[in-house]
């Protein structure tokens, strides 16, 4: 039971998380707020590691901290800060409500039996051998609860459509083409990121990793290419293949979901023998789409068309 008890590391991590959050939201300066936000993401990733959630840690570090942080930094100049403050009575009310929320949550959480909490872990580990993968998180994401993931991919598509609609011309990225150091770094980084993505993808079936983490790595590669001003990099122009690649994950997912059910089985019920391959197929397609989606979000708008007429 001793392992369950709180340690100094837990205390420090927790306090640091809270402190950084308070600092992030409390600071008046926008730039400092963003830097603190990214730092906060890093600390939270550590927290995930401490809580034995390496899959989440990887995703948090890459998507939650790095990508969201970069996105925020990129958009900040276009968002003039507002110094206005909510009226005092509102602030007082909000503070009371926040404290009340905390009290209620703390009370509820303290009532949970943390030693022997009922959970779905039992059924998951019991059926893990039938799932086709050995990483339980991947098993949940792409087999037991694959339907969630399928719909989540649709959420990504909503975001892409929304961003392109709202911003028919992506705000310009300053190419770093002329910086020799950057270009040298690029030659190393891009292949590395691509290999990393492939590795993470493959790793996902038995160890922490998977489509999201791989997608994040791949999107970093795409972003670097974009920053370098590489003419044929994805995202330099709006092309049919780019759009097709953006929705490939969703399309493959649906195709597999329906395909496996055509033999009379349920939706997304993989034949046990093919489960691993099908999951890998879906994940591969997802990786590309997720990477491109994250890149589009970072770009913050639709690249100029090079197909022909402007849309």
């Amino acid at each position, binding site marked *: 039971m001793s392992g369950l008890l709180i340690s100094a590391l837990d205390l420090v991590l927790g306090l640091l998380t809270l402190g950084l959050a308070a600092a992030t939201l409390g600071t008046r300066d926008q730039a400092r707020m963003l830097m603190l936000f990214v730092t906060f993401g890093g600390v939270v990733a550590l927290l995930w590691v401490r809580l034995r*959630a390496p899959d989440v840690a990887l995703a948090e570090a890459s998507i939650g901290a790095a990508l969201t942080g970069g996105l925020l930094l990129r958009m900040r100049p276009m968002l003039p*800060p507002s110094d*206005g403050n909510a009226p005092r009575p509102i602030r007082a009310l909000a503070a009371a409500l926040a404290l009340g929320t905390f009290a209620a949550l703390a009370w509820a959480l303290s009532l949970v039996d943390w030693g022997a909490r009922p959970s*779905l872990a039992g059924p998951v580990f019991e059926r893990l051998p039938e799932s086709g993968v050995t990483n339980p998180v991947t098993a949940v994401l792409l087999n037991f609860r694959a339907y969630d993931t399928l719909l989540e991919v649709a*959420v*990504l598509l909503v975001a892409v459509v929304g961003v392109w609609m709202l911003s028919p011309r992506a705000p310009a990225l300053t190419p770093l083409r002329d910086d020799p150091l950057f270009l040298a770094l690029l030659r190393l980084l891009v292949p590395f990121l691509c290999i990393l993505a492939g590795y993470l993808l493959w790793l996902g079936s038995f160890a922490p990793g998977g489509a999201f983490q791989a997608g994040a790595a791949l999107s970093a590669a795409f972003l670097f290419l974009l920053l370098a001003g590489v003419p044929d990099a994805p995202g330099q122009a709006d092309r049919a293949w780019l759009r097709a690649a953006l929705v490939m994950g969703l399309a493959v997912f649906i195709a597999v979901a329906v395909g496996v059910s055509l033999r009379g089985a349920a939706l997304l019920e993989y034949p046990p023998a093919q489960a691993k391959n099908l999951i890998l197929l879906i994940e591969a397609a997802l990786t590309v789409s997720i990477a491109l989606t994250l890149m589009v979000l970072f770009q913050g708008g639709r690249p100029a068309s090079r197909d022909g007429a402007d849309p």
Partner: protein
Amino acid sequence: MTAALWHALVGAGLFSLSLYHLIVAQDLLRRIIAVNLLGTGLFVILVALGYRGPDAPPDPVPHALVLTGIVVAVSATGLALALARRVHASGGRSEDV
């Protein structure tokens, strides 16, 4: 107090703190960050739920949920930033939202 409970409480604190700032903040960027942190607080609670000590394997279900949640959050954030830019570009103010 167990480590899981402690971290869940940290998550609750994060949630409440962000809620306060989400309500009082006028600045759009700050609100977007606040709502992100609100989500993170929730994710911390969820992952803490999955923690079953250093010896037992963690419950993978909350992890999967949080992964989904992170992706949803980044999608919403991307959309929110694009929208915030249009609000400002068309002459709107943060206070109007």
